[in-house]
């Protein structure tokens, strides 16, 4: 599951924040506006990213004679 965030800024206070794109309408009621052309890159599931990093490290270990990397292929 990916979570798309956008940058918003509060007109009265000058604060900035990142929020879910789907919540922008709610923040606009409190005086926030979307910062144009500064949408935050889509963030992949952190757990998935962590898993992929572990797999990559395991693959390196394997070439050095370590244990085999886990099978991450998706089953249909």
């Amino acid at each position: 599951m990916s979570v798309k965030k956008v940058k918003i800024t509060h007109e009265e206070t000058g604060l900035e924040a990142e929020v879910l794109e789907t919540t922008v309408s709610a923040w606009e009621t409190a005086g926030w506006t979307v910062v144009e052309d500064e949408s935050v890159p889509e963030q992949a599931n952190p757990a998935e990213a962590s898993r992929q990093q572990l797999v990559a490290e395991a693959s390196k270990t394997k070439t050095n004679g370590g244990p085999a990397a886990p099978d991450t292929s998706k089953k249909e």
Partner: protein
Amino acid sequence: MARIIPNENSWIGFTPTVASVSAPTAANITAAVNLTPYVISINASSRGNTVPTPSFDSLFETSIAGTVQATFDADFYRDDSADLAWATLPRATDGFFIISRFGGAGADHKPIALDVVEVWPVLIVSRTMANMSNNTVLTFTASASVPVEPVEDAVVAA
């Protein structure tokens, strides 16, 4: 000094950012979404755990202080024209609930500088509609994890 109820006293806001959990600024509160009109109930509580340390040389079972955990759940109204609470709190939303139980000194009980508030860092994990039933207003429950230790006695900075 008096015993009070939350109606027309408390103020509840949700903001995406705070300068400090222990000292949110007045600007942070100004920029918060005011959810007070939508709140039915809030369960923001922390709980400490104790670790039993009994020993054979005593009939008294001693214990020591262990970890502390916190939970955050709140019930809100839906609204067919201004569904603000529902729109603000979808699953995966992170932010900070600002709770002024006794109300602040600002307009409509909004906290201002030097007021004491609770700051609850949360990540919404579920947004669940209540059962739809006859002659019953539509409400939902937002449940959240508490990823950072909350501060129950934060003082609003200028």
